[in-house]
């Protein structure tokens, strides 16, 4: 199944590139630099999707104590962190020519950064505990805290920033996107989701093999 997912992801990524660079038009106000969005936006969607899978796996592990659920949670949270890292990095590269700065403490940037740090902490905790069973339990609890904390982080950071700048600045003309751009975004989302799913299955298999080797 993993190999099939991998090939599907490869085909999807190729289609995504065609959509992003061939079909989608040059954006009027931003120019071609807007094409980074076909990578940047789907990456954060896939990251949050992966975290949702990770938390579901964590809850399932705490309920049933099957090691497979924990491996899924671990793999999904790690892959989600990788995708969120790509999202933040590409966002900075997009922001430099568009906003004139690599980073600004804008509401969305800040909340994504906090979520990123929370899941890096999750991975650090996993690394610090040798006993697999205990690592699984602790990490599951941490991922539940992190997940429930996400809405709190979003609200607080949003209020914190919007006292200084109107929210209209945060969503420049999202309603007037041409259909080709929407299509390109969705194709790239599907492609990156396939890539993420491929990574998760691969990583979960690797974790199983590691456990077997240690046993």
């Amino acid at each position, binding site marked *: 199944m993993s190999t099939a997912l991998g090939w599907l992801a490869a085909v999807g990524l190729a289609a995504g590139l065609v959509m992003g660079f061939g079909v989608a038009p*040059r954006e009027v106000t931003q120019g071609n630099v807007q094409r980074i969005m076909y990578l940047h936006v789907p990456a954060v969607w896939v990251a949050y999707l992966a975290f949702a899978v990770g938390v579901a796996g964590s809850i399932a592990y705490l309920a049933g104590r099957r090691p497979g659920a924990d491996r899924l949670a671990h793999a999904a949270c790690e892959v989600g962190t990788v995708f969120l890292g790509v999202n933040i*990095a590409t966002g900075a590269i997009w922001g430099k020519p568009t906003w004139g700065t690599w980073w600004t403490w804008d509401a969305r940037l800040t909340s994504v950064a906090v979520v990123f740090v929370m899941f890096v902490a999750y991975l650090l905790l996993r690394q610090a505990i040798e006993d697999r069973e205990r690592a699984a339990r602790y990490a599951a609890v941490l991922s539940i805290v992190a997940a429930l904390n996400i809405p709190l982080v979003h609200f607080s950071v949003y209020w914190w920033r919007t006292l200084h700048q109107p929210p209209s600045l945060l969503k420049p003309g999202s309603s007037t996107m041409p259909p080709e751009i929407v299509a390109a975004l969705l194709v790239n989302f599907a492609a990156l989701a396939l890539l993420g799913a491929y990574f998760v299955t691969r990583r979960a298999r690797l974790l199983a093999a590691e456990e077997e080797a240690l046993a």
Partner: protein
Amino acid sequence: MPDNWTFVAAAYGLAAVVFGGYWRWLVRKERELAALRLPRPSRP
């Protein structure tokens, strides 16, 4: 607005490096584990 193709290339290049690097790390680890496991059954 200028096109800033270098920034586009940098973003896609960086993503390719990160995803490719992660994939290669997964494959390498899997191979190492497989190599570790192979000699085991031959042992008495």
